C-alpha cells in the first residue's frame, strides 16, 4: 500500500527560542504542540496519535503523552537521531492511511545549551571497541569529508559554499542564531576543529524545538490552512557493514529513490529542498545520493551560490538551516519539514520564497554519518 496522497501536514511550528535556561524540556515540547495546533486550527482533544524520539523525557512516549494530556489510539517513538521527525511524518502518514488515527502530533524539543548531555549506555555493543578513540559527532563527519576530498577532489572552498548559502538565507530570519552573511574566505579563516572541517562548517547548538500535525484528508479539507500533501517517503539505515566501511555514500542512496518512486517525481521536478545540514559535508553527500547531481560532483554542484534562493538552481534551507538558524536538541529534522511546509504554503520570507512552489523535498540524516546513521526522505506537494 502506498501512502501517496493519503495524509496532509496541516500544522507546523518552530519554537522561536534558541536558549531556554528557565524552561523544562517537557515544557518546550508542550509549547511546540500548542504552536502547531494553533497553526492548524485544531484542539488538543483532536489528537489521537503521538510521535516523539529520544529527546522526549521518559520512556518512549509514556511520560510526554501523560504530561500533554493526550488520549491516544496510536503511538510511535522511533529514534533515528536528527532524521527521526521525517520518519515520524512517514509513519504518521502510514498510520493515517491504514485508518489507525486521524490527527498525529509530532514533537521535538531539547536544551543542549542549558543541560548536560546524557552519557552513552554501557551495553551498546560497539562502544568498547570505539569509545576510547575519542568518537565525536564532528570527527565522524570530518572523516567522511576527508574521504570525499581524497576520492573526488572536493575542496574546502566548495564545502564552504554550503555555509555561505545558508548565511545568505539566515540574514532574513529574525530568529536565526547567526544572521551575518559570511564568505568562503570567512569559513576557511575560522579555526579547524576536526580536519578538514572548520568551525563554520559546523551547525549551531540551540535549545528549542518544533512540532508538526499530520492528518487524514477529510480533516485537512475541514481546515482553513493551505494543504501540504505527503506524496512519497523513504527511510534507510547505514552502518559499518561488518567492517566493509565505505564512506563515499550515505543511506540517502536508498531512502531517496524510495521516496521519488512513491511520489512519481524525479529530482529535476523539485523546486525547493530542505537538506539536513549538521555539517557542510552532510549537505553535499545527500545532494549526490538523492540524485540532484552525480556521485563525486557535489562539490561543483554546491559552489558559486547554486543553493541560494533567487541565485542558484536549487534553493536549499531558506530558513538558514542548521548551519545558521537552528538545530534544536542537536536534532534538526523537524526544522527541515517546517521550512518545506512554509515554502509550499508561500509563507517563507519574501526574500527567499520560491515563486509558486508546489513540489518540495525534505531530507534528514541522523546519528553519525561516518559510522551509523539513518536517512529519511519526504516529498511534499501543495494541493
Amino acid at each position, binding site marked *: 500500500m502506498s501512502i501517496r496522497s493519503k495524509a496532509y501536514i496541516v500544522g507546523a511550528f518552530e519554537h522561536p527560542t534558541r536558549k531556554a535556561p528557565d524552561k523544562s524540556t517537557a515544557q518546550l515540547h508542550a509549547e511546540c504542540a500548542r504552536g502547531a495546533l494553533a497553526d492548524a486550527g485544531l484542539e488538543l482533544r483532536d489528537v489521537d496519535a503521538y510521535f516523539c524520539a529520544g529527546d522526549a523525557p521518559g520512556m518512549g512516549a509514556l511520560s510526554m503523552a501523560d504530561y500533554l494530556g493526550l488520549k491516544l489510539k496510536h503511538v510511535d517513538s522511533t529514534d533515528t537521531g536528527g532524521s527521526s521527525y521525517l520518519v515520524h511524518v512517514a509513519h504518521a502518514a502510514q498510520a493515517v492511511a491504514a485508518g489507525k488515527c486521524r490527527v498525529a502530533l509530532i514533537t521535538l524539543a531539547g536544551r543542549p545549551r542549558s543541560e548536560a548531555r546524557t552519557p552513552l549506555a554501557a551495553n551498546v555493543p560497539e562502544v568498547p571497541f570505539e569509545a576510547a578513540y*575519542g568518537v565525536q559527532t564532528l*570527527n565522524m563527519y570530518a572523516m*567522511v569529508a*576527508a*574521504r570525499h576530498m581524497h576520492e573526488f577532489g572536493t575542496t574546502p572552498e566548495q564545502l564552504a559554499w554550503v555555509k555561505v548559502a545558508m548565511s545568505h538565507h539566515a540574514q532574513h530570519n529574525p530568529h536565526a542564531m547567526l544572521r551575518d552573511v559570511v564568505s568562503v574566505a570567512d569559513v576557511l579563516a575560522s*579555526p579547524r576543529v576536526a580536519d578538514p572541517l572548520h568551525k563554520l562548517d559546523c551547525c549551531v547548538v540551540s535549545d528549542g524545538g518544533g512540532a508538526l500535525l499530520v492528518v487524514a484528508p477529510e480533516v485537512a479539507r475541514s481546515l482553513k490552512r493551505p494543504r501540504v500533501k505527503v506524496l512519497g517517503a523513504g527511510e534507510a539505515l547505514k552502518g559499518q557493514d561488518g*567492517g566493509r566501511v565505505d564512506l563515499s555514500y550515505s543511506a540517502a542512496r536508498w531512502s531517496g529513490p524510495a521516496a521519488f518512486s512513491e511520489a512519481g517525481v524525479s529530482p529535476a521536478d523539485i523546486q525547493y529542498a530542505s537538506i539536513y545540514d549538521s555539517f557542510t559535508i552532510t549537505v553535499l553527500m545527500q545532494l549526490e545520493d538523492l540524485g540532484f547531481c552525480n556521485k563525486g560532483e557535489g562539490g561543483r554542484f554546491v559552489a558559486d551560490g547554486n543553493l541560494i534562493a533567487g541565485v542558484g538552481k536549487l534553493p536549499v534551507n531558506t530558513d538558514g538551516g542548521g548551519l545558521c538558524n537552528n538545530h534544536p536538541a542537536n536534532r534538526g529534522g523537524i526544522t527541515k519539514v517546517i521550512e518545506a511546509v512554509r515554502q509550499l504554503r508561500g509563507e517563507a520570507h519574501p526574500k527567499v520564497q520560491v515563486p509558486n512552489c508546489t513540489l518540495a523535498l525534505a531530507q534528514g540524516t541522523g546519528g553519525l554519518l*561516518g*559510522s551509523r546513521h539513518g536517512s529519511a526522505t519526504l516529498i511534499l506537494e501543495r494541493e
Partner: protein
Amino acid sequence: MSTPAQDRTLVAPISDAFSAPFWMAAAEGTLLIRCCNACRAVHWYPRAHCPFCFSDDTAWQASPGTGHIYSVSVTRKAGPQPYAIAYVTLEEGVTLLSNIVDCNLDGLRIGDRVEVVFKPTEGGAFMPMFRPV
C-alpha cells in the same frame, strides 16, 4: 606544520565473557579479529554471530595488524590535546575505527601504511591503535 601526537587518558573498555579473549590478547600485543567458520568472512567489530551469513560458528583469528589509513581526521578542538581518529583497513579486508599515534599528526595522509600498537587505558586494558610504518 607539526603537531606531535601525545598520549591521551583512555577510558577503559568494558570486557565481558565474549570479548575477554580479545582484551587478554591485546594485553600481550596481539590483535584479534573475528572470522566466520561457515562463510569464511572476517568482520569487525567482533560479534559472536557473523553479520554476513548470521552463522553463530565464529572464532577469533590473530591479525598481523598491518594495513593502511582509509580516512583520518585530526581532531583539534574536542579535548585537552589534538588526536587523530581514523579508519584503518587491515590486509584481511576489514576496516577498524582507531587512532593513529606516535607520529606528526599533520603529516598523516589517506593511504599511508600503518601497523598496530597497543596503548594502556585507565583500567589497565590495552586498546589497539596504529602508527605509520
